[in-house]
């Protein structure tokens, strides 16, 4: 009887208000967790540094000598660092949830916030937002590196190379798309980590998802399988968003490719949400 009385305050609130407040509280709680631990800030910084360093190294090492035709996509080349930065972003995403499982914090979190979907939604929002901001900085730095370095290495407009700058439509699309790409990689990794729970195994799985398909593609000789891999795997399809030359030979359009990554991210998050709902923490 006593217990029933104590439980009463909850039903007294309007259900919609509870849900709205739940998400707001969850966001606030997750934001507090995010900003009071030094790990995420360092990882975000590492993602920027690695992306820009990778891009600068790639454009710095590429020359187009006079008299040679260079089959190079300057924009894609300038965004090479995204392939390094994505590893750090994925690790950040995995640790967002698996650290809670590792320390047992997840039980506290879920006791305080029984609406598990709100917890996951808050984590997703507070992962995606900083990743998008940091991704924008990293991608802008990469484009800037390409813009400053490539013309001096023979990639000039006079020789038919398009400018690597945001005023050029396809480059703008590639740059914005790369930022979204990093955000989607983060969400996909978060979904995987919610399903797997253990940080080490999650990171193994996520790194395999990121880097294994391109390696398999290098070995597969069957044209049908090459086509399928290029069209449906998260990183190969997703990175077509960076392509600005030879669009006709692509097996999937740039935005379509990013859409495929979006499907992967959505699928991972939905499976993660189901797992979170159905399993004991």
């Amino acid at each position, binding site marked *: 009887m006593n217990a029933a009385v104590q439980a009463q305050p909850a039903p007294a609130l309007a259900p919609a208000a509870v849900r709205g407040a739940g998400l707001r509280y969850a966001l606030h709680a997750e934001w507090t967790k995010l900003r009071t631990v030094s790990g995420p800030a360092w990882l975000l910084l590492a993602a920027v540094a690695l992306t820009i360093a990778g891009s600068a190294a*790639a454009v710095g090492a590429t020359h187009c000598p006079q008299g040679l035709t260079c*089959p190079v996509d300057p924009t894609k080349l300038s965004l*090479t660092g995204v392939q390094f930065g994505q*590893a750090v972003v994925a690790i950040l995403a995995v640790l967002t949830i698996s650290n809670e499982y590792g320390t047992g914090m997840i039980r506290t979190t879920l006791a305080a916030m029984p609406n598990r979907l709100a917890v996951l939604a808050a984590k997703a929002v507070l992962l995606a937002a900083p990743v998008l901001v940091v991704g924008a900085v990293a991608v802008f730095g990469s484009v800037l590196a390409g813009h400053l370095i490539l013309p001096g290495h023979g990639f000039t407009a006079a020789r038919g190379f398009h400018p690597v700058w945001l005023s050029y439509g396809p480059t703008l699309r590639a740059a914005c798309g790369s930022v979204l790409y990093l955000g989607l990689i983060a969400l996909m990794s978060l979904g995987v980590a919610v399903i797997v729970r253990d940080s*080490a195994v999650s990171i*193994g799985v996520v790194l395999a998802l990121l880097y294994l398909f391109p390696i*398999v593609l290098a070995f*597969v000789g*069957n044209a049908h*399988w090459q086509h399928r891999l290029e069209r449906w795997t998260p990183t190969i399809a997703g990175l077509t968003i960076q392509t600005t030359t030879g669009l006709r030979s692509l097996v999937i359009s740039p935005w379509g490719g990013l859409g495929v990554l979006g499907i992967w991210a959505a699928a991972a998050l939905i499976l993660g949400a189901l797992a979170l709902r159905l399993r004991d923490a």
Partner: protein
Amino acid sequence: MTAQAISARRPEAGLGDGSRGGFGAVLRAEWTKFRSVRGWVIGMILAALLTIFIGVFAAANASIGCSINGGPQKTGKACLPYVPHGPDGEIVTDSFSFVRQPLTGNGTITARVTALTGEHANLSAGPAQAGNGNTVPGLTAWAKAGIIIKQSTHQGSAYAAMMVTGSNGVRMQDNYTGDIAGTPGRVSAAHPRWLRLTRSGDTITGYESADGTHWARVGTVQLAGLPSTVQVGMFATSPNYTVTQNSFGGDSGNSGPAQATGVFDHVSLTGAVPGTWAGTRVGGGGLEGGPGPGGGRGSAPYTRNGGTFTVTGSGDIAPVTPGPGAGLPTVTIEQSLAGAFLGLIAMVTVAAMFFGTEYRRGLIRTTLAATPRRGAVLAAKAVVIGAAAFVTGLVAAVVSIAVGVPKEENQGQVLLTAPVLTEVRVIVGTAAMLALAAVFAVALGAILRRSAAAITIAVVIVVMPFLLSAVHIVPAGVGAWLLRLTPAAGLAIEQSIPRYPQVTTVTSPAQGYYPLSPYAGLAVLCLWTAAALALALIMLRRRDA
């Protein structure tokens, strides 16, 4: 304070006796930990299964289709062209124009080469055939003409030859893989080259001279089991004209047929010879007509004007190597080991957790209380995980090759065979590479004390350099340095076909070529692992657990 000191000392003193059980007991403890965690054992089994699955999947090329002389459409193995094997068992190209006489017993052939010219396909024009206008004058780097002593006119038979080449000077070559450099420079009427080959039993010695009087020995080779009667004479041939672009967008090769013409005079033979010359096209193909075991049926391979012979030929006398230069759908055994990358990620994950988890659960304090010798704990963990990874990798590599390679062959791919010892090196080396990577990850786990960070670093510095250079994310030069300096250098142990300087081909990691020799590459990985273990030992000893 005193109580603390006493309690800290007691376990150590107590277990000092117990630890005399020695390294075996520590090893047994670590083995028990490994095998009793279901996830780790499953992880290892998964590593093997995924390796095999990817390897066999990567081998799932579409069957090659063909139609011979307008006949019925065939696929797979029926399309395999005739491929000769050299004396050492490797697959070779052996196509050239041969002006020959039989020589019985010992003897010498001498000839002066006054010109080497050629023509090759114009790659921007249509299909090239001699004289159809789709060719342009020019010599390929390894176009060759010279004198040769050959076991028989059968493709793949033993030989030794002295030759002038397009841009590699005078060479002495033997049995397809042997290549000795002579004087550099191109031959011309103003700078002719005198060449001489002397047979004495199984020993053949090559000489060159600028004037026919002062001779310099280039090399001496042994052709084991050379019959008493051999074919001796002049030859000319040229491999395909290949343009490779080692550019950022990826190494790509584009090739078309080519032919070379050598002009000889002052030809003299000593020994038991009939004295009459016969022309033969060994092999066939190239600019003169379709390939086939019977040889091309084009124009005569040589013309004679008094003492001057003009020999024109197309093809090559060289080993077949992977890549587009071969003109054959080739496959190597290590291509079935593509899945080892996935196996590696799985094994590295297990290995990093093997140490990292102890820190998370606090088990490390129990472990170190039971075995105060921290080095022994590290060594035992390394041995256990290394052995588990080695055995798993060995099984996976054997099954991958046993299943994947016949599958490729059935689809009409030419398997570039390697000597048995090389195959053993590839298989055992792959297992050793996986074991070393796993031990590396264990050491990282001990250094970082966090499995997640250890896995990330291990995967990124072992797998990424290969990915970056094989998929052409970084330029070829940078990729080559990555594969020399990073732990990914260990992948070189998988290369079964050596890089032959006398064959022009695309030598990128995706084609199976690594910048370091197999054992040097594995040694680099060993150094990384040893360095990580040493650092782990220092950290383990210095830090409180």
